[in-house]
């Protein structure tokens, strides 16, 4: 579909011809295995979600990440705990890569009190404050300004509050899809992030489709990374099915942000191996397109690379897979055995300070009053 496969485009030089793809960068055995493990975790976790959804354990819209693992892993595994991730409705795997325990994510999906949001958020709204996963945003575009704001805060905390560490700024990654790049909030934030030199990387997961809308039918100039230079920002296109290439581009962009040199727009060409959500009949994508990308499975590719480079043996990788199988099984058992949220949870967390929520006729806070949800569901 695309010809331009440049790993990096140079803003200053304008729209020069795409550079040649460089040879695979070296990774250590430890790094390679960490990446492999994370991608396998993402894959197996999502496959399990599909099973659990069909068994009625999770509900609503469930958007799986299969096929796109190289992006989450390639980027997020480079972050520190203090760095932020902002995701969309397709957020399970970003949460896992950022270190949220699989059992917390699974329990959330089951709507259990042990979930990372006690069952109040759900599939499209993963948050984990300790991991600085500051949200799955279900609306298109919404996460982009929020992420830009987190990056603004990181810079402010560094420069005004003198809070951050010596390595530089905390970095925020904003993940979103190709379809989202037609939305106005994307452009508004490219401008402000560049204007204020914010420590953010805009990571476009271009999986060529927005539900059933092909990217080419939706976008007058489909090369998304070129929108970067239009705002004076570096724009990079990378093969999103190759975790090592993603990682190389990610490293440069994250370091640039951390040094205070500003944002980068990275377009990762990738593909989702399943429908848009588990409710999607997926009838519009052509079989040969699916086959083409299936052959470029990022996990298979990394496996091949690891073995070819003698970084690990096939049995070692198998044992990682086995291990992850267990982790995911255990997550399901944990989620299944966990309690449903108690009724009282319905009324909690509307406010951080419920005092403000008014004082009832009896002098008690309204939120403690059983008539708080006046006229409703008789909680």
């Amino acid at each position, binding site marked *: 579909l695309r010809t331009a496969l440049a790993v990096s485009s140079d803003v200053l030089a304008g729209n020069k011809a795409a550079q040649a793809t460089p040879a695979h960068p070296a990774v250590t055995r430890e790094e390679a295995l960490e990446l492999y493990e994370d991608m396998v975790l993402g894959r197996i976790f999502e496959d399990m979600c599909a099973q659990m959804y069909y068994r009625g354990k999770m*509900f*609503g819209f469930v958007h799986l990440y299969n096929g796109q693992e190289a992006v989450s892993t390639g980027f997020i595994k480079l972050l520190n705990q203090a760095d932020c991730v902002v995701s969309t409705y397709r957020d399970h795997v970003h949460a896992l890569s950022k270190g949220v325990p699989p059992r917390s994510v699974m329990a959330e999906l089951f709507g259990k009190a042990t979930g990372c*949001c006690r069952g*109040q958020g*759900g599939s*499209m*709204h993963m948050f984990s404050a300790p991991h600085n996963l500051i949200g799955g945003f279900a609306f298109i575009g919404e996460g982009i300004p929020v992420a830009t704001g987190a990056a603004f805060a990181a810079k402010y905390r560094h420069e005004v509050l003198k809070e951050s560490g010596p390595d530089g700024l905390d970095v925020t990654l904003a993940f979103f899809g190709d379809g989202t790049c037609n939305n106005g909030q994307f452009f508004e934030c490219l401008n402000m992030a560049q204007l204020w030199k914010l420590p953010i990387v805009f990571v476009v997961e271009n999986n060529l489709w927005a539900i059933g809308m092909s990217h080419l039918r939706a976008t007058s100039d489909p090369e998304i990374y070129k929108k970067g230079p239009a705002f004076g920002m570096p724009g990079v296109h990378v093969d999103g099915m190759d975790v090592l290439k993603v990682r190389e581009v990610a490293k440069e962009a994250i370091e640039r942000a951390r040094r205070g040199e500003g944002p980068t727009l990275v377009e990762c060409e990738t593909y989702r191996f399943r429908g848009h959500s588990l409710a999607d009949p997926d009838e519009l994508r052509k079989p040969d397109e699916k086959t083409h990308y299936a052959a470029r499975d990022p996990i298979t590719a990394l496996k091949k690379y690891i073995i070819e480079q003698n970084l690990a043996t096939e049995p070692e990788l198998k044992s990682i897979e086995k291990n992850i199988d267990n982790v995911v099984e255990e997550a399901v058992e944990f989620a299944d055995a966990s309690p449903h949220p108690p009724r009282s*949870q*319905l009324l909690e967390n509307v406010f951080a300070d419920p005092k403000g929520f008014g004082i009832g006729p009896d002098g008690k806070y309204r939120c403690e009053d059983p008539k708080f949800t006046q006229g409703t569901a008789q*909680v």
Partner: protein
Amino acid sequence: KEITVREALNSALDEEMSADPSVFLMGEEVGEYQGAYKISKGLLDKYGPDRVLDTPITEAGFTGIGVGAAYHGLRPIVEFMTFNFSMQAIDHIINSAAKSNYMSAGQISVPIVFRGPNGAAAGVGAQHSQCYAAWYAHVPGLKVLAPYSAEDARGLLKAAIRDPDPVVFLENELLYGESFPVSDEVLDSSFCLPIGKAKIERQGKDVTITAFSKMVGYALQAADILAKEGISAEVINLRSIRPLDRATINASVRKTNRLVTVEEGFPQHGIGAEICMSVVEDSFEYLDAPVERIAGADVPMPYAANLERMAVPQVDDIVRAAKRACYRVVPMAATA
């Protein structure tokens, strides 16, 4: 004969597009995908991509484009995948659509329909579950409709498309697959319902229950239960939230002297509050008991199924409220 609400909507779209070439449908996934909920099934094949327009994900942009097309001689139907997303376009719905006929002193009418599912679905969490009836019905220049049955869906959608003014048409995802009996009249392509008229779904004499959209079904179930206990409930399907059919509501309350309002949305400044106000304004002396308001819990929608169920009205809540209105004896503890 029975048809589903989905079929009712689909056939209404089809007939109106076939009757008037200036009618067209636009929105995300309305064409090749045939609608996120398949409401536009078959329309792309029949009317082609000029009249069934897949848009990029730009609620503000494509809604404004729809409004501009309505200014300039067309009759767009804008589908929101859910009304929640209309928040990104609300400036155009309010300023560009609702206010222009007035600002232009009648020069620029805006014959446009904004439609899509509204309110709570199932398991979709806080962002996808809000009811926008009260917001839109707050604003002059808009007509706001909320169908319950297949008859409502057909008659009101056809009325909305033919109307020269902007109409906000609030569907309900959980009703799309529900079947309702329909008469031949309803199936006739000339069928149309008046905007601004409520429907008495069930006659009664002891208590009036007002509801719209999915809650009409709950109110009818509650009326069945109440009937077994000797309470005769009159159920009003509002159909139109703006204009609100104050005449029908007040006439009913003058007969029953008691009122329960039911809605899935948030209580404060909601539909129930306005209905209460209009009955207090017009029929105060007829009220024998405080108006009982049943509404969604005053919290963002939780994801967990058990919490979600507690956050929206259930049939039992309506039954209890009707009894409270009739006896005024249910002790507080029992309701808590």
